[in-house]
C-alpha cells in the first residue's frame, strides 16, 4: 500500500491509542480528584497518595495525543482547537489548578491544606467537565445552537461521572478499610452516570451524520456490530450486580477480587472508545475533513513514525515497571 494512504491511518491509530490511554489513565486520577471532598479527612491523604506517582505520566498521554493531532493532522488541529477555544482554555485552567494543588496541599502550611484540597477537587471537576464538553462539541461537528451546546454539557456531566466510576474503582483496588467500602458506593453512582453518557452519545451521533448512521444500521454491519453495545450493556449490569457482593466479601476481609471493578470499568471505556472511533473514522472532523485531507507531508510523518515505533515500546515497558514498583495497596508517600 502507498505510504500516503497508510501513514495517515497509522497516525490516526496512534493518536486514538494515546487518547484512549489518556482517558483511562488520567480518567482515574481526575475521578479520584472529584471524589476528594466526599472522603473523610484521614482518607484524603491516602486518595492523593494512590495517584501521586502516576499523574504526571498520565497527563503526558494528553500531550502526546494532542501532539500527534498537531504534527500528523495540522489542518484539523487548527480547526478543532480554534472551534474548542473556550472549553480548551477552561480545561487547561482546571489542569493547572489540580496539578499544582497536588503539591501545594502538603507543602504549604497546614492551615492552607483545606483550601488546596478544594482547589484540587474543583480543578479535577472543571477539567473533566471541559473534556466532556469538548467531546460533545466535536461529535456534533461544532454545530451552533443551544441544542448542540446542551448535548455537549450533558456529555460533560456524563464523562465526569465516567471518571468518577474509574476513580472509585481505582480506590477499591488501591485502598482498604472504610475508604474502600465508601468507594463502592461512589462506584454505583458512577455506573449510572456513565451509562447515561454512553447512551446519550450512542443516540446522538447517528442523528448528527447520515454517514455514521449508515455505518451502524446498514445490513449486515448492524448484526456484526451488535455484540459491541450488548457487551457494553452486559458489563454495566455485571458491574452493578457485583458491587454489593464485593462489599460483603470485603467486609469479611476478602480482598481477592478488588481489582475486578476497575478492569470492568476499563472494559466499558475500551468498548465505548472503539465504538466512537468506528463512528468517526476515517474523518478527523465529522463529514468535513478526513484523515488523508488533513494529513501532514509524508516526509514529516515518516520521521515521526520511525521514532514512535522505536520509542513507544520502551515507554510502555518503563510505565509497566513503575506501576509494578507501586503495586498493591497504597502506602503513605514519603520522599525518603
Amino acid at each position: 500500500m502507498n505510504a500516503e494512504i497508510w501513514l495517515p491511518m497509522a497516525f490516526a491509530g496512534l493518536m486514538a491509542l494515546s487518547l484512549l490511554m489518556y482517558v483511562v489513565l488520567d480518567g482515574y486520577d481526575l475521578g479520584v480528584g472529584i471524589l476528594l471532598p466526599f472522603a473523610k479527612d484521614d482518607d484524603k491523604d491516602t486518595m492523593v497518595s494512590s495517584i501521586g506517582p502516576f499523574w504526571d505520566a498520565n497527563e503526558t498521554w494528553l500531550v502526546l495525543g494532542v501532539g500527534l493531532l498537531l504534527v500528523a493532522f495540522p489542518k484539523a488541529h487548527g480547526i478543532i482547537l480554534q472551534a474548542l477555544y473556550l472549553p480548551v482554555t477552561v480545561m487547561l485552567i482546571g489542569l493547572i489548578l489540580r496539578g499544582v494543588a497536588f503539591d501545594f496541599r502538603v507543602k504549604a502550611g497546614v492551615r492552607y491544606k483545606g483550601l488546596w484540597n478544594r482547589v484540587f477537587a474543583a480543578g479535577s471537576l472543571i477539567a473533566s467537565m471541559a473534556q466532556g464538553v469538548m467531546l460533545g462539541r466535536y461529535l456534533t461537528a461544532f454545530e451552533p445552537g443551544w441544542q448542540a451546546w446542551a448535548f455537549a454539557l450533558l456529555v460533560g456531566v456524563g464523562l465526569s461521572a465516567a471518571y468518577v466510576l474509574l476513580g472509585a474503582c481505582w480506590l477499591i483496588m488501591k485502598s482498604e478499610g472504610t475508604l474502600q467500602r465508601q468507594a463502592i458506593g461512589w462506584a454505583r453512582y458512577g455506573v449510572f452516570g456513565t451509562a447515561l453518557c454512553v447512551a446519550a452519545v450512542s443516540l446522538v451521533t447517528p442523528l448528527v451524520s447520515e454517514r455514521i448512521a449508515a455505518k451502524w444500521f446498514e445490513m449486515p454491519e448492524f448484526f456484526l456490530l451488535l455484540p459491541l453495545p450488548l457487551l457494553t450493556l452486559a458489563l454495566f449490569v455485571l458491574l452493578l450486580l457485583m458491587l454489593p457482593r464485593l462489599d460483603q466479601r470485603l467486609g469479611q476481609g476478602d480482598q481477592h477480587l478488588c481489582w475486578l471493578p476497575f478492569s470492568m470499568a476499563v472494559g466499558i471505556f475500551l468498548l465505548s472508545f472503539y465504538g466512537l472511533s468506528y463512528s468517526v473514522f476515517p474523518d478527523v472532523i465529522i463529514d468535513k475533513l478526513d484523515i488523508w485531507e488533513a494529513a501532514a507531508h509524508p516526509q514529516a510523518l515518516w520521521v515521526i513514525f520511525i521514532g514512535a515505533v522505536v520509542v513507544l515500546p520502551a515507554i510502555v515497558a518503563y510505565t509497566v515497571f513503575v506501576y509494578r514498583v507501586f503495586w498493591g495497596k497504597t502506602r503513605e508517600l514519603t520522599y525518603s
Partner: protein
Amino acid sequence: MELDALILARIQFAANITFHILFPSITIALAWILLFFKIRYTKTGDTAWLDAYGFWVKVFGLSFALGVVSGVTMSFQFGTNWPGFMNTVGNIAGPLLAYEVLTAFFLEATFLAIMLFGRRFVSERTHNIATFLVALGTTASAFWILTLNSWMQTPAGYEMVEGQIVITDWLAALFNPSLPYRLTHMLMASGLTAAFLVAGLSAYRWLRGDRSSGVMKALRTGVLSAAALIPLQIFVGDLHGLNTFEHQPAKIAAMEGVWETQRGVPLLLFALPNEAERRNDYEIRIPRGASLILTHSLDGEIKGLNEFEGMYPPVAKVFWSFRIMVGVGLIMLAVSWVAAWQLVRRKMLSPWVAKALVGMTFSGWIATVAGWYVTEIGRQPWLVHGVLATKDAVGDVPAAMVAVSLTMYLGVYVVMLFAYISVLFYMARKAGSNGPASMGEPGKGVAR
C-alpha cells in the same frame, strides 16, 4: 497600540511561555544537582548529602509539577492561536515536538515517580538510575525545543514548496547555525538559575540559624557552581552574540541601539531609544566598544537599523531586555565570587553576603526571561526568520475570546507564582525547625 486579536494572542503566548520557562530553567539543572547529591551520598555514606537531597527533591517535585501544567498549555496554544505556524513549518516543528514528547516527556514524568517516592521500594542503585533518567529527560527536552527555536531563528536545510517548507537536509536543519550557541547558553542559564536558587534558599536557612551539615553542603554546591558557571556563561553569551551578528544583524542593531550603519560604534551603557526620531536619547557610551566586541576591531562596521527598513524589531524592548540580562549577569559574577571566596578561604560566610545571596535567589529567572525577550522579540516581525511573519500565523479566534482566556491565564499565573515563592520559603523555614535528621528516616518525611 490597538489591542487586536494579533497583539492579544502575542501577549498571551508571551505570558504562557514566560511563566513556563521559569520552571524548566530550574528543573533542568536541579535534576543534575540532585543526582550529584545522591551519588555523593552513595559514595561517602554521609547522611548530610541525603538531607540535602531530601529537601531539594521536594523543591524539584513542586517545580516540575508547575512546569508540566504550564507546558501542557503551550502544546495547545499552537493550535488555538497560531495555526499558521504548523501549516507552514509543520514538517520540521512536528517531528521535533513529537520527539520531545516521545523521548523526553514520558521518560522524565515516569521515572519522576521513583525519584520522588520510590526510595523505599527500589534499591539505592535503581533509585540513582531513575534520578539520572529524569535528569537526562529534562536535558533531552531542552535539546529538542531549543533545536526548534534555533531553527526558527536561523532556518537551514529546507526549501519552500507550495507555501510549506520541506526539509532537504535533516542534519543541517537539526544542527542549524545558532543551535550550539543557544543550547549551551540556555543550559548554562538553567545551571545558574538552579545554582542561585540552591544558594539563596540555603543562605536563608543559614541566616535563620539552621547550619546543619546538609544545609552547608547545599550552600557550597550552589555557590561554587554559580561561581564556576558565570564566567563561562559570559564567554558563551559573547559567542552567541557573534553568531547572531552573522545571521540576524537586525537583532544586534536593536540590541546595541544602532540606527545608522557605521564604523567604530560605541557601546551604550544607558540610552533611551527613540523610535519616532530614530535616535537614542541620554546616551552614556564607551567609544568604539560595540565594534570591538562584535567585530574584534576598533572601527569595525555594524549594520544599522536603516538597512532593515520596516523589518526590524521594536528597539527599546530588545535594547533594555539585553541590558537587564547583562546587568544581572554582572551582579551574579560579583556575588557568587565573593561568596565563593569566603566559603573556600574563610570557611565562613559573612551575614551581608548571605543576605545578598538570599536577594539573588530568583536572579536566574530575571536574567533568563530577559535573555529570551532579547532573542524572541529580536526575531520580530518574523515568527520564523525570513520564512513566516508573525502576523501571518495567527488564527481567527475573535479578540474578545482571546481577551477572556488571557485574563484567566494571567490571574492563575499570578496566584501560582506567589504561592510557589511563598511555599519555597515556608519549606525552608519548616525544614529548619523539624531538625535535619527527619529527612533521612523513612516514614517521617512529608508526604506529597
